[in-house]
């Protein structure tokens, strides 16, 4: 990583934490976006609490997608599971063909308002990238390597854990990165059905015509997405190096 890149990322992180923990420090700057009489810093709740809840919603939805998608990818690459490859692909695709707003709208009558429909939408949305990438990763292990593992007398579980998973880790992480960054921005939409995310700040701004709210909500979401994306990239790179690529 170049020194400049490092400085920029650190600056981004400092800005994010500062903005979330002590938004009043930016009151003057944000006031540039307000009309007379409007508050410049979000005042209907704590930005910190919203950020944490935003992250928690994303993390739990993506953790669930990862569990299912990776499990599915492992299953369909085992001898007893190959028959299910087309079915599981179709299943994961469903999550992608529905726009998240549609999923949200469909979930509300079933699940009511609140966090649950958002979780479901993010979960469905996260499946495909993780599944496709895990599948690509598992099938990218060179045949001589898997054959050698078999030929040395490793049992199926030992081959999976010792050889196949480590070698497909970089691609799996790439899938996780895609899903997570998509979910971070999509989660904001969840606030339209009353999920406590940073979308609240943006929506409040839109409803009252307060651009400062929109700006601070947008900047926080954007910084979160960029920094988490960068974190994943660094992790993938170190994994790649570890497996000698």
């Amino acid at each position, binding site marked *: 990583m170049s020194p400049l890149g490092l400085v920029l990322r650190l600056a981004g992180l400092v800005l994010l934490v500062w903005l979330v923990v002590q938004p009043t420090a930016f009151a003057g700057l944000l006031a540039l976006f307000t009309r007379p009489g409007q508050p410049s810093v979000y005042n209907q709740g704590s930005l910190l609490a919203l950020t944490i809840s935003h992250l928690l919603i994303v993390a739990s939805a993506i953790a669930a997608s990862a569990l299912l998608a990776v499990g599915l990818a492992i299953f369909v690459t085992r001898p007893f599971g190959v028959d299910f490859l087309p079915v599981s692909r179709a299943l994961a695709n469903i999550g992608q063909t529905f726009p998240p707003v549609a999923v949200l709208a469909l979930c509300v009558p079933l699940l009511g308002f609140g966090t649950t429909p958002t979780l479901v939408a993010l979960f469905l949305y996260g499946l495909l990238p993780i599944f496709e990438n895990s599948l690509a990763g598992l099938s990218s292990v060179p045949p001589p390597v898997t*054959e050698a593992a078999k030929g*040395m007398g490793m049992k199926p579980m030992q081959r999976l854990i010792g050889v196949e998973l480590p070698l497909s880790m970089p691609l799996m992480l790439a899938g996780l990165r895609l899903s997570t960054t998509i979910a971070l921005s999509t989660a904001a939409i969840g606030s339209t059905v009353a999920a406590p995310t940073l979308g609240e700040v943006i929506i409040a701004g839109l409803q009252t015509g307060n651009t400062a709210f929109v700006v601070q909500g947008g900047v926080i979401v954007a910084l979160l997405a960029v920094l988490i994306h960068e974190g994943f990239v660094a992790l993938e790179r170190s994994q790649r190096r570890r497996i000698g690529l």
Partner: protein
Amino acid sequence: MIEICDVVKSFGDTRAVDEVSLMIAPHTICALVGTSGSGKTTLLRMINRLVEPTSGNIRVDGRDVMSVPAYELRRQMGYVIQGHGLFPHWTIARNIATVPSLLGWDRRTIDRRVDELLDLFQLDPATYRNRLPGELSGGQRQRVGVARALAAKPNILLMDEPFGALDPVTRGKAQEELRIIQQKFGTTIVLVTHDMDEATHLGDRIAVLDKGRLLQHGEPADIIANPATDFVRELVGTTDRAFRLLSLATLGEHVESGTADGEPLEATMTLRSAYSELLWSGRKAAPVARDGTVLGIVTLDGLGRLAARP
């Protein structure tokens, strides 16, 4: 002892291995030769059950391979896969230690064994132990592949074109190493190759496969002298079969009495190299010596007689 009895392996309509019966005696090297697609790899992989026969059976030391769990069978045999197949995310040491670790050897014994093998293959342990396969040359990787197969001191070693990617010099060295190891430990080796020179040089016996069928099985000299079919004759090569025959024996086995001048030739030299040496130095005869003691002589005429059709 490996006994292959009437083994057939079909993939759909093609018979990759077609009613092959083959007996491989303990402590010998059997070279499986044949053109690409003749079924060498398939036959080899049936010995450690990476491929299961459609019919027929294979016994190793009297036990049907299908009667033991596959993983147990494989841990008892060394396997050098075509194209090395090292685990790219494991260090050289961990790669070599694969089977000993699976067998639950203790840490210290494993470390000692790894260093011993690295030494044997002339890879300095301190330098190479902790490298990843990606940081080695192709030839070094292939040697590590062989070291990994030997790690748990198997009685049987299955090798699929282990020296395929090596240059002639390194290949020659690797073949010598293998010979030495085989003689030292009495390993039974099944060696797949399409290099007839390698087969005659290393094999105690050669098995020739074509389109899945076993055409001939015998000692190299026998196969060179009496090829069973036109295909075998073509494989052996008609233009240089006299030289192939000469390459099978060493000077020490054919010393003549008499005296000759000039630089003595080593008794361990093959007849073929000695013939070339005589021609090159323009001599009709040369002394033969072992460790500095002259045993006798070798003559062009004598070599000429040995190279003639038996």
